[in-house]
């Protein structure tokens, strides 16, 4: 029991590796950037856009990217 308690727990190692504050901001922004990359690179066939691409204002993908961009701005200014 004591041995287990003294072992470095994985989450504490991760927390210790948390590093400076800018790293937190970079990680959160990075998550949304990665999300945008995934959204943009999804094949049109997966979204049922095979015949014709919808105008931008009717594209669910474009709206999703816009929401993600707003989140990046939120974390960039208030993170």
């Amino acid at each position, binding site marked *: 029991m004591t041995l287990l308690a003294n072992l470095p727990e994985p989450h504490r190692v991760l927390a210790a590796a948390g590093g400076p504050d800018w790293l937190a901001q970079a990680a959160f922004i990075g998550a949304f950037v990665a999300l945008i990359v995934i959204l943009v690179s999804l094949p049109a066939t997966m979204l049922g*856009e095979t015949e014709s691409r919808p105008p931008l204002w009717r594209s669910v993908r474009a709206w999703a990217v816009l929401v993600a961009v707003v*989140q990046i701005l939120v974390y960039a200014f208030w993170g």
Partner: protein
Amino acid sequence: MVRLSAVDVALVVGYLVGITAFGVWLGRGIRGGRDFFLAGKSLPWWAAGMSLVVSDIGAKDMIGLAGDGYRYGIVMMNFDFIGCIFPVLIAAFLFMPYFWLAGVYTVPEYLGRRYNLGVRTFFAVIWVLFMMGTLGTIFVSAAAMFEGLLGWSFWFSVAVTAAVVGLCTALGGLRAVVFTESVSCVVLTVGAALICGLGLAKAGGWGQLKETLGQMSWTQHHLDLLPPADHPVYPWPAVLLGLGFVLGPAYWIGNQAIVQRTLGTRTQNEARASYVFCAAIKLVFPVLLVLPGLVGVALLHSELGPPGEHWDGNRVLPMLVARLLPPGVLGVVMGAFFAGVISNLDSYVSSASTMVVTDLYRPFIRREATDLECLQVGRWLVVAFLVGGVAISYPIKRGFGSVFEAFQTFLSFFQGPLLALLLLGMLTKRATPWGGVAGMIVGVSTSAVLNSAEWLLGVPGGVPFLWTAWWSFVAALAGVALVSAFTSGHDEERLRGLVCWLPAKGRNQP
């Protein structure tokens, strides 16, 4: 007790009567289980999106987040930002369209088709138990508000709430739930915005509020959105990994009360659009829900003081409401509270009924049940769940805090493993039925061990729940992957429409 004027009482009662009549009216033309459980696949994206928002946010969230905003500051907004918007956008494109295309009624039904009946039944039973407990806690929240605001007794408050929800849900099914929730979404937004606007004005505006927060020692970090890595409750790596990558996605992808309205949309593109619309609305809600907490610091700190061990955060919002809102406006805000309560209740009642009929009644009790029979059973189950919720509400009232936390802890045992099974099941055809069973067992065992880490492993203070979610997810992923490597899976034809790289033949319309 808040003193409501005649105008306020009229607004609240009018709202309750109006929403009930609207729900009953929407129930016309229900002819079978598909109409009742999935609204006949006729829901527009905007209604499903608004419904998603209020299925998630109830009165207890409004009160709880204001208290947490007072205690911790804007870090609480992460629950709606990285904990909601991020997973909702992922779910919109990678999960919901495939649930929709698979033509399933419930998430466990998907798991059953993808893995086996054991996995399906396990998660169905877990969710039904959780929903039953949640119903009891929502009844208690509703009764507390009615009791405090209108002076009604506990049982009378519970009976009125059950009658409103029962009439709407048993007669109107998912269609009534979604459209009444759309109305609730508007009322909730207006009510929350009024509290924020009037509160901010009273606090002297944003500049003055920032100055006030900067003057107190315990609110120095209240305007930091990202907590430090050594934060005792919300270290940022745990927020990102546990909340953003596990609990958020598990909730938005695996919670039947959330997913069901999307399965009732007209096309898979509308299923996607409903989630994106929900994410767009959710950009505003963190501000609406957490800002009252900051306003509370500015206006009430001399009375409430810095949060200590026995400090009660649930007092912040009711105190603000009582002091800030003039007659008439108070009625609208009260309407918003009730909208939140009713939306939460009807979501859970409707989903629990759908899950019991789809995942337990049909597979185990009457395999040959007709659609009409399922409709009738579904309606009776709505009544049964409400009666059950009412019955357990009193014991929950007696030990509210501990019971509610017990339900939350109970659910957190299963969120990580559920997400792992859904993720691997949808993204790869290599995940096998035995892999699913192994992942479920390994993941839930990991959760149980980490949740008991304080006395089992001697970890001082235990493991934060966000880390428990993350590591149980990782363990379940490993369990599925390892056992799948040595066991055989379903053939490709069976997996069509269940794995995103294998579209169903003839069913890939947008």
